[in-house]
């Protein structure tokens, strides 16, 4: 039946819809976080009418509305433009009934799905265009009732528990959380595991918790910098194309802070490289967690060091993590018998 086929095809791509929402939400968070962080320059006691006060309040706008934007574009991913308005409204509702990020995400997916299905109903031509206006209204209504009376209360409870738990972790608990996040961030270079930890870090900003993002920020720079460092320390262990790549990639590590750029350095020798980056990131995360490193701007590069609450801890995390990664990967590689000359020859042949 067509209905089931559509349903299955929408929910099979839940991950894609979710990530589409995150993709549109990130710039909002970025603007809010950066302007809010700039306000710190004005000191801690801000007058409402000073320019720093304005920055602060603009920052708060970004940090508040990223959740509805995410819900809006999750729905957009499912049913295109008609999904934006319903998604936005249920996203704000989700925030108001204290279900936060998680509630907004679920509501966005559900409202997108319901609106899409309603729009698929076939009507006589005359009614079809009117239905185009009404379907999103009806879809929103259904999900609003569902959220408020069915899904809302248990999620709100869950978010409350999570918030209490994370706020009271203390140093050891945070260190453990940092180690776990570091491990996830170091094993798949921007794949599902890394995205899980970075999404978690941005999600809890909605609960006014900034330690996870601090951890996230310090671990993402470790794999790229560590591997670059490793190629400089022992160039003999790397093929010519890997060395060439490393020469330019460290720049990206500093400005961007995303682990995807190490993929070309990793694919040739995946297991050893992964062990090294996971180890380095885990230790960096552990240190960041223990010192309760906080970051309220999702800009994860070294160039943004001054946004951290403890810049020195951040630098220490990055340096220690990178050095450990570099030494480990070179040790593992020197124990292997990877034939660099043969790989170079193969590369040269391919580029001809």
């Amino acid at each position, binding site marked *: 039946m067509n209905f089931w086929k559509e349903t299955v095809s929408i929910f099979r791509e839940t991950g894609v819809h979710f990530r589409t929402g995150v993709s549109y939400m*990130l710039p909002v968070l970025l603007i809010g976080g950066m302007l809010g962080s700039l306000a710190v320059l004005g000191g801690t006691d801000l007058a409402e009418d000073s320019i720093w006060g304005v920055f602060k309040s603009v920052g708060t706008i970004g940090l508040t509305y990223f959740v509805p934007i995410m819900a809006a574009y999750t729905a957009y991913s499912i049913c295109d433009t008609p999904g934006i308005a319903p998604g936005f409204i249920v996203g704000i509702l989700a925030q108001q009934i204290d279900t936060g990020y998680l509630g907004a995400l679920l509501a966005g997916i559900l409202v997108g799905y319901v609106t899409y299905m309603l729009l698929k109903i076939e009507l006589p031509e005359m009614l079809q265009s009117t239905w185009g206006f009404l379907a999103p209204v009806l879809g929103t209504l259904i999900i609003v009732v569902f959220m408020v009376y069915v899904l809302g209360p248990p999620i709100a409870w869950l978010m409350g528990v999570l918030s209490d738990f994370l706020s009271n972790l203390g140093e050891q608990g945070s260190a453990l959380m940092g180690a776990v996040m570091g491990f996830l961030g170091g094993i798949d270079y921007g794949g599902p595991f890394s995205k899980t930890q970075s999404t978690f870090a941005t999600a809890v900003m909605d609960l006014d918790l900034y330690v996870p993002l601090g951890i996230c920020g310090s671990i993402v720079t470790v794999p790229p910098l560590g591997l670059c460092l490793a190629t400089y320390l022992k160039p003999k262990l790397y093929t010519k194309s890997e060395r060439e790549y490393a020469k330019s990639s460290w720049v990206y590590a500093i400005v961007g802070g995303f682990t995807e750029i190490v993929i070309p350095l990793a694919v040739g020798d995946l297991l050893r490289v992964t062990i090294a980056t996971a180890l380095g990131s885990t230790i960096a995360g552990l240190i960041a967690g223990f010192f309760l490193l906080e970051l309220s701007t999702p800009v994860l590069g070294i160039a943004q060091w001054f946004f951290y609450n403890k810049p020195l801890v951040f630098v220490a995390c990055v340096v220690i993590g990178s050095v450990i990664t570099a030494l480990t990967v070179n040790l593992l590689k020197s124990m292997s018998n990877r034939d660099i000359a043969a790989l170079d020859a193969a590369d040269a042949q391919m580029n001809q």
Partner: protein
Amino acid sequence: MRIALVTACLAGVAHSKMASMALKKEALKRGHEIAIEEQGGHKVPVKLSPEDIARADVVIIAKMVNISGKNRFENKPILDVSVNKAVINPALIIDQAEALLSSSS
């Protein structure tokens, strides 16, 4: 073969670029023509022109997030793949595109 390629990733910084570079290299090596559009949160995409789309024999969409403007490609054979796969194994993707074209023509 003429390819129209759209890549889309979370932030529009890393994966979309890497996928388009990998596929471009592979396509040119085999003597195909390729037109590229990269999408993602932080950039204004350089759009495929209507001529690019009209001329294309096959459309490849390498995505991590849903692309905008999918309705532009109606009536075209579309190959829908994950962006990661395109980065790691571009040759396979181009193989699939070639197979798709020969099966649809």
